């Protein structure tokens, strides 16, 4: 038979257990709104029973461990989905910038093209008129400057992507280092027999953030350390060692490389995931394509107008054979497309009204060349399209990129929300549930206290005998 003093200790264990459980509940309630927090559960077990006089009886309860409610599968899904979300989210700003540049409003370059050819049509009604000539010159200049502006604005988008990439790398490196440090701390804590719940929460959140920035897959090694890899297998964090990203500028573009130990690897948009992939894809795939399309449009308009003037034998007001209307700078690289850089370099060749050729005879009322130049706008020389149709194609393509990116972004946002809801249902804190637990533990505490006072009365009774 157990002594009354043993019974006192049994009661005390109940008090301790309830108190600890209340503490855990309190912590849960306090962290109900903390990002990445996982609900903690007091793992209550029965203490080792005593065997005395052929009887085995329990000696109370104890909190064996404080567990963390988490689901590794959901955590992994969150890591993967964050990368997808990060990619579309990061691409959405520069893509809509590009769309704004390829405007379809009244001030778009297609209106400038219309106005330019309209000015020639107008000149045809009064070939020697200075006002009409001024109009041709002005519209030509506006057109050339609009091409330059588009080129400049695209370059600005590239520049802002560059600086955004550069500014995200220090944070990313810091996060990788923290994951590595946490791996170390968690292992030490747990080897010492402690719980590392908070550290684990912190690590899960960091891993997710890293994945959102650069895309990562995770695995857990033999020591329980979380290791991160890029999709192409390059290690980001191995155990307690973190790799680091660095950037260099090559031809005006920020190139990312990853240093693992003593080796550096250059990375492009296909090696990475997450926000970096989204930004690099826009910068290295979308923008060069748009730039080339716009260059080609500028080049085609400029060369077709120039060629027509010279093949028709245009004569200017001074009676001299007309010179080119537009100047272009040929690309330096002989292997490049002939239109490479045309949008940046297109300009009106002169600002002297007399140098415009309206006809091919030099006669004051000859307007034959005006008509032929105005007719160029019906030419279907770019991919079977006229100039403005080609511009419409370029703008439509940008619009499609934006709308499909938006759709994917909202889809991945929905998936992410769904995953968060799933994670919450496992790891989230429900204050109502915690209140119920609180009542339960409070009742346990009261019961244990009452039990102790009963034992005390029994002891009193015994002592007064």
């Amino acid at each position: 038979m157990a002594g009354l003093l043993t019974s006192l200790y049994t009661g005390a264990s109940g008090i301790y257990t309830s108190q600890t459980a209340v503490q855990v509940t309190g912590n849960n309630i306090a962290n109900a709104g903390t990002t990445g927090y996982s609900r903690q559960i007091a793992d209550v077990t029965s203490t080792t029973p005593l065997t005395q006089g052929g009887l085995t009886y329990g000696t109370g309860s104890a909190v064996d461990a404080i567990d963390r409610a988490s689901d590794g599968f959901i955590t992994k899904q969150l890591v993967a989905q964050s990368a997808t979300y990060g990619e579309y989210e990061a691409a959405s700003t520069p893509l809509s910038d590009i769309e704004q540049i390829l405007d379809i409003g009244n001030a778009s370059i297609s209106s400038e093209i219309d106005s330019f050819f309209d000015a020639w049509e107008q000149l045809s009604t009064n070939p020697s008129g200075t006002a009409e000539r001024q109009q041709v010159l002005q519209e030509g200049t506006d057109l050339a400057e609009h091409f330059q502006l588009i080129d400049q604005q695209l370059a600005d988008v590239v520049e802002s992507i560059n600086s955004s990439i550069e500014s995200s790398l220090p944070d990313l490196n810091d996060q990788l280092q923290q994951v590595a440090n946490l791996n170390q701390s968690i292992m030490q804590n747990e080897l010492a027999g402690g719980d590392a719940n908070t550290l684990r929460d912190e690590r899960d959140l960091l891993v997710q953030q890293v994945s959102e920035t650069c895309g990562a897959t995770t695995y857990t090694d033999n020591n329980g350390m979380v290791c991160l890899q890029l999709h192409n297998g390059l290690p980001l964090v191995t155990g307690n060692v973190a790799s680091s990203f660095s950037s260099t500028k090559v031809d005006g573009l920020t190139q990312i490389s990853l240093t693992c130990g003593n080796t550096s690897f250059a990375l492009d948009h296909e090696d990475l995931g997450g926000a970096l992939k989204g930004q690099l894809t826009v910068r290295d795939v979308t923008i060069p394509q748009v730039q080339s399309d716009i260059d080609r449009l500028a080049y085609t308009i400029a060369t077709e107008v120039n060629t027509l003037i010279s093949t028709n034998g245009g004569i200017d007001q001074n009676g001299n054979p007309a010179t080119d209307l537009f100047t272009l700078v040929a690309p330096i690289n002989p292997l490049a497309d002939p239109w490479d850089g045309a949008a940046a370099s297109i300009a009106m060749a002169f600002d002297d009204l007399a140098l415009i050729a309206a006809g091919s005879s030099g006669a004051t009322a000859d307007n034959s060349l005006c008509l032929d130049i105005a007719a160029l706008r019906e030419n279907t020389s770019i991919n079977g399209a006229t100039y403005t149709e080609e511009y419409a194609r370029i703008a439509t393509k940008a619009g499609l990129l934006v709308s499909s990116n938006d759709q994917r972004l909202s889809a991945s946002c929905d998936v992410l929300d769904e995953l968060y809801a799933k994670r919450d249902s496992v790891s989230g804190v429900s204050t109502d549930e915690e209140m119920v637990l609180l009542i339960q533990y409070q009742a346990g505490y009261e019961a244990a206290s009452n039990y102790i006072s009963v034992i005390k009365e029994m002891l009193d009774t015994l002592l007064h005998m």
Partner: protein
Amino acid sequence: MIITRNATTYRNLQTNLSTTSTTLNQLYVKTSTGIEVAKASDNPSSVGSIISCRSDIVKGERYVANCKHVQDNLSASEIYIDSVEKLMTRAKEIAIAGANDSLSAADKATLADEVSQMREELLDLANTQVAGKYLFAGYNDQTLPFSGSPVTYNGTSDHQMIEVNPGATVAKNITGEELFMSPVNLFTTLEDLQTALTSGNSTTISAMLTPLENAAEQVRSRQSSLGNISARMDDMISMHENALLQVESILSRHQDADLTEVLSEIAKMETSLEATMQVTARVSSLSLMDYL
């Protein structure tokens, strides 16, 4: 599935609030600008139509302006051609009067003088300038087209073609060549009449009637072609104006917001936003703690 109020419920409400207010904001912008497709991604399939409609409007307006320009030019020419025609008719009357045997030599000399005056007048008409440009000079509209004795034509036989429809052009001018010189030379004809009146008899004067009639006919045929072109321009103008209305309505259909639709959509979204807000307020008031 456990629904945690702090996390799940509030996150959902937050997402919905932001989605609804973003949509609402887009609708407000649509109402204030009146434009449905402001950027390509609003409706990529409309971009081609919008841009080609805009080009068509620019072209259509220019064609209307060109038609009017041609009409203006031709009606300026018409005034002078009418005078030429009257002059040639008068010359024929003089020839008929001059062919009368009973006319004295002095009377004939008076008539010859009048014809000489008419030659001068014809030369002035042929060298007519409007806004500093010679009307009947072809391409050389800044060089005196008729001069010398006998009168020669220094202009060109080119017509200034103006585009009035895609690929279709009309001439905005009558050249001095076709009006005064070829096939009948009006100046020579009048000179011949003057010579006949001065030195010829009634037979030679009568013989002038046919060439004079041919000359007048040449002028009249130009007159009628002017009338035809002008009538054609009227048709063209109304055709282009109708087409412009059509294109503008197509552009509006692709580009402009349907205000009725947008406004009813706004009402719908506002109701939904209000409901979301009310629910948000109510969620926080429901708690187990109220009953403890």
